[in-house]
């Protein structure tokens, strides 16, 4: 569009000098829309289809719905790469393929059968999922991951992106190196791991097996561990803040070598310096097992 507009302006003499400014402005404003391709595609899919989605940059939103169809709306700017979609029935693959890491980002809106198993791979694209009840496997480098709903099994992995899960899955695995992990729904078997990012769990559902580990990030746990369940928290020097219901039955085992322990659950809440000697207490027999281990972090435990 821009070359045509420019040539007409050049050929129209005085009028052109008057109109050139506004016309150019209109042309430039219209350029991004014209350079962006909108693609809509629909494919039949089984209720439990396996669907792979690729989108390096931009954003990807996946929503589960009660139809036996995969529906895609893709907005692909010029230079973002080539849209593709293939497969049907039990397996499908779609996305935007780009050879350049600096390519502009595409936007994918994908609706999938609620029971589908979904893989999403991205580099800097933000990924959002909701309403999918099959297995979810999401991987990104620097993009953010957000998921909602009740997938069967959830794996979310980022290098530097933040992960926020408002989900209730039987098994949850969340891993990021520099990003943060926030789990609101929780319950079941949960592993969250980061290197320098914070981990926050405030799940409404009871944890069966919880494992939260970070090197320098802070860990905040606010929730309930099921009877017979285990919660293990390990940091190198990240502080640990643990809040459980006052009637939580558990054996607690808290160890820090260079930090302080503040026990407001069974003790008076005065900080003590255990210097590596475990602080152990039980709130009743037959409960859960809660272990906190840190080299230099402070540990606080309290009741909700």
């Amino acid at each position, binding site marked *: 569009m821009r070359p045509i507009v420019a040539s007409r302006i050049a050929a129209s003499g005085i009028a052109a000098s008057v109109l050139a400014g506004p016309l150019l402005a209109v042309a430039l404003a219209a350029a991004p829309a014209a350079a962006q391709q909108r693609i809509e595609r629909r494919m039949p899919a089984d209720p439990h289809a396996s669907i792979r989605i690729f989108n390096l940059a931009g954003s990807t939103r996946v929503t589960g719905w009660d139809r036996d169809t995969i529906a895609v709306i893709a907005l692909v700017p010029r230079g973002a790469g080539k849209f593709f979609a293939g497969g049907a029935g039990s397996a499908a693959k779609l996305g935007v393929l780009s050879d350049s*890491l600096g390519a502009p980002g595409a936007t994918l809106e994908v609706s999938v059968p609620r029971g589908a198993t979904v893989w999403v*791979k991205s*580099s800097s694209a933000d990924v959002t999922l909701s309403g999918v009840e099959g297995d979810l496997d999401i*991987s990104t*480098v*620097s993009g953010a991951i957000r998921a909602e709903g009740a997938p*069967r*099994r959830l794996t979310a*992995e980022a*290098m*530097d992106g933040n992960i926020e899960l408002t989900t209730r899955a*039987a*098994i949850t695995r969340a*891993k990021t*190196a*520099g990003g943060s992990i926030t789990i609101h729904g929780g*319950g*079941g*078997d949960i592993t969250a*791991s980061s*290197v*320098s990012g914070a981990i926050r769990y405030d799940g409404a*559902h*009871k944890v*069966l*097996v919880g494992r939260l*580990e970070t*090197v*320098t990030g802070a860990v905040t746990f606010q929730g309930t561990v*099921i*009877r*017979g369940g285990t919660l293990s928290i*390990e940091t*190198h*020097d990240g502080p640990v803040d643990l809040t459980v219901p006052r009637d939580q039955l558990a054996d607690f085992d808290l*160890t820090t*070598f260079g930090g302080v322990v503040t026990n407001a659950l069974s003790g008076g809440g005065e900080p003590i310096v255990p210097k*590596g000697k*475990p602080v152990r207490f039980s709130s009743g027999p037959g409960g859960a097992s809660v272990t906190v*281990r*840190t*080299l*230099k972090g402070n540990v606080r435990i309290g009741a909700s």
Partner: protein
Amino acid sequence: MNCDAARDLIDPFLAGTLDAAGRRNLEEHLATCPACRGELEDATALRPATAALPRSIDPPHDLWPGITRRLSRRISRRAARPRWQIAVLAAAAALVLMAGSSALTLWIVRDRGTPRVATGTTPAIEAGYVTATADLMRALDAERSRLAPATVATLERNLAVIDAAIAESRAALAADPGNRDLEALLWASYRQKVALLQQASRLAERS
């Protein structure tokens, strides 16, 4: 029906194998007993997770040296490796993770009350981790050009954080040899390093 008898019936009740009379008795008891209703709730929450548990058994720790030797020979023969070898290394590193974890669990389960562990096993486990991370680093170096500069920077920044943690844990363990908690923290840092390198290898593989 008392609580002990009711709790014995919860599993068959959830599995659908309890007969009609047992079901009726249990339901009558649950209607009047909050504690047993809590047990039922816990057991119900447990079922999806236990059904999804893996059925394989972790390999023994002594598999790792043999795998390492074979992989090391391949590394020395070929400077540039095809992508599948990175996958093999990543899988092998996963073996050492599982083996180290199993060994640690075994100590804890066997002797929870004793504050010290046999120090002779510590160097062997650490050697396994060191070998695993070194192999993964070599494999990753060969593929580093596939990663975006920002990803490499993130990787190196976080590896430095982990290496500093490993150094501090090792120093603390040297001052208090055999301390099980310090060992667990050291292994946790090594696990983080192996997992991060595996993650970077996967990213390089699909770039």
